[in-house]
C-alpha cells in the first residue's frame, strides 16, 4: 500500500465512489479496485449512508435471457461494446458510461431500471468468460444477449416477437385504458343487468 502512487489510489477511490453511487455491491468494488475491503466498507457507508448489503451475487446466466431483462441487458451491452470497441474507452470507464447511458434511456422511457448495476457488471463478466454471446435478430438486425453457442440462423428477438405471455407494461396499460373503457362498458352494463 505504502509504495503505491497516490494518484493511482485516488483514481481507484473515485472509481469506487462512482460505482457505489450507481448501486454497486461490495463484490464489484473488491474485484475492480485494489482498495482493501475495510476501506471499501467505510467508503460505502460514507457514500450511501448505510452498510453494504450482504449475500452472494446472482450467478446464473438464465436471468439475462428472460424477456424483459434480456431487452434491458441487450441495450446496455450494445452501448458498452460501442464505447469500448469504437471509442477506445478503458473497460471500467466504458462500463460506467454505458450504464449511465442505459439508465438515461430508461428514464426517458419512464420505465423501470430492470438491469441494476451489479447485474450489468455480472453480464460483462459472463461475456468475458464466453458464457454469453450476441445474436443478431433476423427481423430488426439488432444484437441481443443469448446463451453462448445457441443457434443464430433463425433467431428473432423478444421485441419483434414477444412471448405470448409477455406482460404489458404499466405505461401501455394506462395508455390503452381509454380505449379499453369503450370496449369494457358494454360488459360492465351487462354485469349491471345481472346484479
Amino acid at each position, binding site marked *: 500500500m505504502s509504495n503505491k502512487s497516490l494518484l493511482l489510489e485516488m483514481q481507484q477511490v473515485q472509481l469506487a465512489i462512482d460505482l457505489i453511487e450507481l448501486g454497486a455491491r461490495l463484490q464489484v468494488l473488491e474485484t475492480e479496485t485494489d482498495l482493501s475491503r475495510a476501506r471499501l466498507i467505510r467508503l460505502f457507508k460514507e457514500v450511501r449512508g448505510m452498510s453494504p448489503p450482504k449475500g452472494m451475487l446472482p450467478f446464473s446466466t438464465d436471468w439475462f435471457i428472460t424477456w424483459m431483462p434480456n431487452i434491458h441487458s441487450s*441495450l446496455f451491452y450494445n452501448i458498452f461494446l460501442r464505447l469500448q470497441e*469504437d471509442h477506445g474507452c478503458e473497460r471500467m470507464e466504458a462500463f460506467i*458510461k454505458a450504464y449511465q447511458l442505459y439508465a438515461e434511456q430508461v428514464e426517458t422511457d419512464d420505465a423501470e431500471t430492470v438491469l441494476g448495476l451489479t447485474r450489468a457488471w455480472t453480464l460483462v463478466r459472463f461475456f468475458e468468460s464466453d458464457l454469453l454471446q450476441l445474436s443478431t435478430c433476423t*427481423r430488426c*438486425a*439488432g444484437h441481443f444477449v443469448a446463451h453462448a453457442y445457441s443457434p443464430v440462423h433463425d433467431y428473432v428477438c423478444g421485441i419483434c416477437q414477444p412471448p405470448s405471455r409477455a406482460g404489458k407494461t404499466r405505461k401501455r396499460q394506462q395508455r390503452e385504458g381509454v380505449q379499453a373503457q369503450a370496449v369494457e362498458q358494454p360488459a360492465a352494463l351487462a354485469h349491471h343487468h345481472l346484479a
Partner: protein
Amino acid sequence: MQINKLIDEIHELNLAYLLLAQRLINEDRASARFRLKIDDEMADLLQELNARQLTRLSRVNQLLCHFGHDSAEQLRQLTHNPREQGLAQFHASLLMASRPAVSSAAEG
C-alpha cells in the same frame, strides 16, 4: 418562396446540430462520440471549429446530420411492429446503439 424558407431551416438545423455537437463533446467526450457516432479525430476537429467555420459549414442546401437507421426494413420493424409492447423507443435506442462510429478516414 417556400423552398427558400425550407433551406433557411436546413441552415438553422445544421448550425444547431454543430453547436450541440460541440457542447456534447465538451461535456463528456466518450458519451458524445457515442451519441454522435463519430470517431476521435472527428471529435477533435468539430471541437476546434470557430463561429465562422461553423456558419460556413451550415450554409449548404443539404443536412449535415445523417439518418440514424440503416435500412427501410429496419425502420419498418420499429414503426410497424405488429406485436408492439410499448418498447418502441427502447428498440430504437438499441438498434442505434449497435451502429459503429463513422470513421473520418472512410468518409474522406
